[in-house]
């Protein structure tokens, strides 16, 4: 019972007409309630792919369909109501409290000149509770640790109440405890029908929650499909130009690269 939610059909894009395309002939489908992990070395086009899917960038060629309709036919607010982005880091110059910051996630659900009210505060707290930092709501974001900040960013995205959640290296700053909690949260979100798209350099996280993998190399799709049948030592080694071994440990996959 796979339901496509976001399709890339033969998408090609480059930043300038004078230079070569950054991503070429991208062709894949994200399924509702599944997690797709995007793997690729640095500069493989992962961020470009996310920006294309958000509608920030427009493909040169090919089209992107959200819920079966052309992405360009959605207003930005409509896209914001459906897709949330969790960046790796976010530069912050001014001091916001965690709550004031998280409330910004309600923006796509409020009118342009609207302001968050009680129900938005409630949504924000539910999101904070899900990432386990509701106690920190009146702390300054700048005073938090790197891991807590990453949870704040995930919290803001959850406040957006999205159907698709893009996460750029969500576990990069997390300790093992928080990573494990996040894996639980991802499983819960999948059960709720939220589609997760994650870029990660951590194959362990990928094996723990991802259903599909998308391997990007030099802006092209190297492989795409269910993780069990797609991910293998040869492909991973080619992707990262490094001998990589996958061991089976009582049914759990363990990736070894050192």
């Amino acid at each position, binding site marked *: 019972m796979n339901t496509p939610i976001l399709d890339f059909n033969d998408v090609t894009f480059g930043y300038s007409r004078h230079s070569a395309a950054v991503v070429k002939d991208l062709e894949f489908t994200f399924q509702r309630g599944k997690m797709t992990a995007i793997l690729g070395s640095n500069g493989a086009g992962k961020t470009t792919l996310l920006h294309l899917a958000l509608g920030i960038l427009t493909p040169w060629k090919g089209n992107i369909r959200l819920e079966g309709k052309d992405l360009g036919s959605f207003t*930005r607010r409509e896209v*914001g*109501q459906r897709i949330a982005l969790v960046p790796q880091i976010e530069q912050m110059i001014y001091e916001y409290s965690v709550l004031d910051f998280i409330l910004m996630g309600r923006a796509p659900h409020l009118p342009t000149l609207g302001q968050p009210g009680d129900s938005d505060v409630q949504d924000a707290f539910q999101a904070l509770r899900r990432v386990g930092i509701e106690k920190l709501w009146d702390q300054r974001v700048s005073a938090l640790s790197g891991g807590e900040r990453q949870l704040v960013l995930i919290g803001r995205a959850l406040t957006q109440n999205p159907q698709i959640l893009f996460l750029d290296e969500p576990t990069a700053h997390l300790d093992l405890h928080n990573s494990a909690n996040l894996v639980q949260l991802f499983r819960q979100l999948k059960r709720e029908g939220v589609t997760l798209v994650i870029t990660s350099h951590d194959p362990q996280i990928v094996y723990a929650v991802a259903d599909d993998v998308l391997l990007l190399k030099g802006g092209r799709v190297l492989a795409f499909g269910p993780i069990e049948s797609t991910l293998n030592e040869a492909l991973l080694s080619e992707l990262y130009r490094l001998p990589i071994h996958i061991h089976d440990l009582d049914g759990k996959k363990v990736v070894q690269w050192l």
Partner: protein
Amino acid sequence: MELEETIQVVRTRTNHRYTWIWALGLGLIALLWVSLFFGRYPEPGFIHLERLSSDDLAQRLVLNLRLPRLLTAIILGMTLSAAGMVFQMLFNNPLVEPGFLGVSQGAAFGAAFCIVFLGGSALLIQSFSAIFAFVGLGASAFLAHRLHYGGWILRLVLAGIAVSAFFSAGLGLLKYIADPLRQLPEITFWLLGSLASITWVKLISVLPFTLIGLFVLFLYRWRINILSLSEDIAFSLGANPGRERTMLMVAAVLPTAAMISVAGMVGWVGLITPHIARRLFGSDTRFSLPATMLIGAFFTVLCDDISRTLLAGEIPLGILTSLLGAIVFLVLMMARPIKVKA
């Protein structure tokens, strides 16, 4: 249950912040009322109500000079601080001030040009400084499009710096060739900023720009938070950062240019009141933008009161805003956090 309690706490704190903003507003009205009766006529200090009711000159002075001047001071303070806040947010840079996109230096050059070459009647100086403020802004925007370095924000900042430097060189040249007895003092006085020459006509001439600009900024007070985030995040939150930021910049620059053209260069208000407001109310512009407008207005009226009353001659407003601004700023930043937001 626990969630309900926390939400109640949040609600109380939000109301608390609004209460303080209203208090600032009432304080401003009180200051306006007091200032109306405060001056150097007939003698330094407050004018007696009996005197005011019997003295025809005093009535005209209060209604035709002091009232428009005070209202201009309020709008000037609101404009500079709101524009400063919006620019600091949109550019993600705590050091920018409202005129940095070539607006202040352009206006200064225009005024000096008018004083040196065209005799410099009040209306002509106002027109020239307004025109050159927009020339400065236009040149910055144009150059930013042409630069091949950095993102849009950085390009605008760099173009603004270049255009400001260009006009500042021109201003230096004008000062150098100006008649040191007649023209140079006039240029200097204009550069230091003053509300001494404000009349109802001048006030009304800038009112449409300032009110529209300030109203737009006020309406966008929560949205500015989202537009201060990085491009892709603002986008993913359903905003159109390019278009909305440009619109807000125009809404901030229009009133700024209009106010500089009548009041000259009143420094520091636009740079520091946003910091004071953030220090007191937190960074969320839903609260800090209205707060900075009221603080800026209060501060400017207070400085102008001193400027027109302390000495027999006017003390240029810009000197006082810089001096007092720096002191207030340092005291507040060195003090323990006394946040209204609790």
